């Protein structure tokens, strides 16, 4: 028993070499027929080639029959034996060769489609430099690192676990986690993640999460699960193929009994192999989801891909998704002279405040001369009044200016109206009752968001909707500037989920873009929940699509990719079904169809769907 198993394993292991020898024997066989005109030598070579070639296929067939599965190997083995019985050694030899060689090419190309995720897995190092009891760092297997261990990470090496920096500084390339290749600087107290690369500097880190608990390991697992997850269509194909192969076998036997023509019966066996149909859909999935993983986009499974590709409405959960999230000075006007002095006074007073507007103003002014400030009086909701160089300085909004009876010229009045209309918050500065400076501060649209929204529209998204907690005025302005379909302000989390419910009831396919913190009901409710997660566990787990590093720019790529995957699957199903139909029709209506040609076309169609799927690895949004 042991010896037999060993023998079987030896044969299976050397399947590729067998295919090679098999091929050479066939070529010699055909040459001997051409050159020596010797039919016996010719037959001898082909017989040896057939027996050699069928061995690994027959072993696989035997193994699957043992567990009651009628695999493709069973069909091919029966076909080869049949060809042998009618002494058609040419066919038996060529079919085994094509089947083995096809399997070899399939393995090679399949490995390519998996390469995206494989490259990712290899980002995780196998060893770590661990601080031992003797106070020295020693290289150990990464499995031997426990939570709390201190590890040394040198320039250019990969960080082995999730941890906190305890000493040293450096910059880390986190593209394996976030898909973002701009290095992030790390110092004492910073979090670092397994699978990221220390571009420069040296760090000592304390391990927080090791092994399968690291963010990186979780991402890998999610991607693997996603690639394996099966849509309804796939489960159907799986079930179908489980019954399909036995049915082909039965049909072939019936045909043989009726026609007594073994040739036709065994040709049916080969033509009936369901290879391309079974492999076509998973291949698109694996390659497509792998592409996403490389760009920091996690698509959770083929069901998600299918829904996402049909999205017609995208809802953004807040202004911050589309804007920078930090107010800054976008416009300023000056009145009268001694402006430089006025700016210094303004900066000196704003330095006393921690109001967000004051921060934006100081950021804009930069380095100037500061004066001592006295008699500071903060008027809530309006601003600050203070004494600088014995002058009365008022910094704040229009209400404060009115309270201080500041004279505002006609020009200033029209400037104020213009800035307000654009949605700015106003910062005014007056010296001794005379208006000197007017600044408009607002949250700006993120770079490139306009173009991204245009891309989404081009991809077929009809409604772009923003639901925000901000006041309606700000929301209207952002909505108008970006050309959103609808924009609603003053929305609480429960208002948002009600709104999404309404959209779904109206028959829209809705994607909700959120950060996964307090909007999980909406994330769960929408057909597709898209988390802008900076690698947080909650966001990754609750959503269907994760954009690592909260990068909005990846949204069009993600949608385009989902559509490309679905297109690719349909093409593959078309190729697979088309080939089977053409083969069967030509068996009935043509003279030239035989077992070898059938196998050639069959293997060709498998390679065609794999190669078609591989195109997704290089998918880029135009």
């Amino acid at each position, binding site marked *: 028993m042991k010896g037999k*198993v060993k023998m*079987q*394993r030896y044969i*299976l292991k050397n399947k590729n070499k067998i295919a090679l020898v098999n091929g050479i024997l066939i070529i010699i066989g055909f040459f001997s027929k051409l050159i020596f005109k010797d039919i016996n030598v010719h037959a001898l070579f082909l017989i040896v080639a057939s027996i050699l070639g069928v061995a690994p296929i027959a*072993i*696989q067939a035997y*193994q*699957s029959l043992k*567990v*009651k*599965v009628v*695999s*493709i190997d069973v069909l091919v083995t029966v076909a080869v034996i049949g060809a042998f019985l009618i002494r058609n050694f040419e066919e038996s030899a060529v079919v085994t060769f094509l089947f083995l060689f096809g*399997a070899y090419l*399939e*393995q090679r190309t*399949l*490995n390519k489609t*998996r390469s995206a*995720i494989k490259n990712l897995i290899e980002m995780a190092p196998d060893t770590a430099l661990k601080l031992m009891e003797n106070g020295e760092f020693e290289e150990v297997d990464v499995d031997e690192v426990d939570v709390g261990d201190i590890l040394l990470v040198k320039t250019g090496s990969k960080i082995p676990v999730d941890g906190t920096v305890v000493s040293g500084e450096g910059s880390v390339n986190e593209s394996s986690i976030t898909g973002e290749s701009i290095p992030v600087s790390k110092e004492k107290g910073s979090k670092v993640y397994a699978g990221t690369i220390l571009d420069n500097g040296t760090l000592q880190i304390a391990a927080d999460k090791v092994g399968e608990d690291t963010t990186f390991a979780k991402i890998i697992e999610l991607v*693997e*699960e996603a*690639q*394996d997850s099966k849509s309804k269509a796939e489960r159907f194909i*799986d079930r179908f*193929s*489980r019954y399909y192969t036995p049915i082909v076998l039965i049909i072939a036997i019936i045909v043989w009994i009726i026609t007594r023509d073994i040739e036709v019966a065994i040709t049916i066996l080969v033509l009936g192999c369901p290879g391309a149909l*079974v*492999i076509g859909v*998973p291949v698109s999935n*694996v390659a497509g989801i792998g592409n996403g993983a490389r760009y920091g986009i996690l698509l959770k499974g083929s069901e998600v891909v299918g829904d996402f590709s049909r999205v017609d409405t995208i809802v953004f959960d807040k202004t911050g998704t589309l804007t920078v999230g930090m107010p800054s000075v976008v416009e300023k006007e000056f009145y009268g002279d001694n402006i430089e002095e006025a700016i210094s006074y303004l900066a000196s007073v704003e330095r006393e405040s921690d109001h967000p507007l004051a921060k934006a103003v100081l950021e804009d002014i930069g380095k100037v001369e500061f004066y001592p400030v006295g008699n500071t009086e903060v008027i809530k909701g309006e601003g600050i009044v203070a004494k600088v160089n014995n002058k009365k300085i008022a910094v704040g909004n229009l209400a404060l200016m009115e309270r201080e009876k500041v004279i505002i010229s006609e020009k200033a009045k029209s400037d104020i109206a213009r800035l307000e209309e654009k949605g700015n918050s106003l910062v005014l500065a007056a010296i001794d009752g005379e208006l000197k400076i007017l600044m408009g501060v607002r949250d700006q649209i993120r770079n490139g968001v306009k173009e991204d929204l245009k891309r989404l529209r081009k991809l077929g998204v009809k409604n772009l909707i923003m639901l925000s907690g901000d006041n309606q005025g700000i929301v209207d302005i952002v909505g108008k500037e970006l050309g959103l379909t609808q924009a609603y302000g003053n929305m609480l989390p429960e208002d948002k989920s009600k709104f999404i419910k309404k959209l779904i009831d109206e028959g829209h396919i809705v994607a909700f873009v959120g950060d996964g913190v307090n909007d999980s009901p909406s994330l769960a409710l929408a057909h597709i929940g898209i988390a802008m997660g900076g690698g947080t566990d909650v966001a990754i787990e609750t959503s269907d699509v994760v954009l690592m590093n909260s990068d909005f720019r990846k949204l069009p790529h993600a949608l385009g990719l989902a559509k490309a995957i679905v297109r690719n699957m349909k093409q593959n199903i078309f190729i697979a079904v088309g080939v089977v139909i053409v083969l069967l029709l030509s068996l009935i209506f043509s003279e030239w169809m035989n077992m070898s040609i059938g196998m050639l076309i069959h293997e060709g169609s498998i390679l065609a769907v794999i190669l078609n799927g591989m195109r997704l690895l290089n998918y880029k949004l135009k």
Partner: protein
Amino acid sequence: MKSAIIQLETLTCPSCSQKIEAALKALDGVDKESINISFTSSKVKLNFDEGKISLKDIEDAIRRMGYDIEKSKIK
């Protein structure tokens, strides 16, 4: 019950996972519901009863079907 993750050599045909699944389901002590074979990552995940079967027995069953095991882990 223990759960095991077994990393196999690269699987090339979807019917491979069918065969392995059938072989594992036939083993006494393996939780049939828990068997999860990933075609893409060539991994087998399952729960088993240590009192009835050892990880080595499970590995041998897979090897007998003609698939090599790269490494395995028990959680």
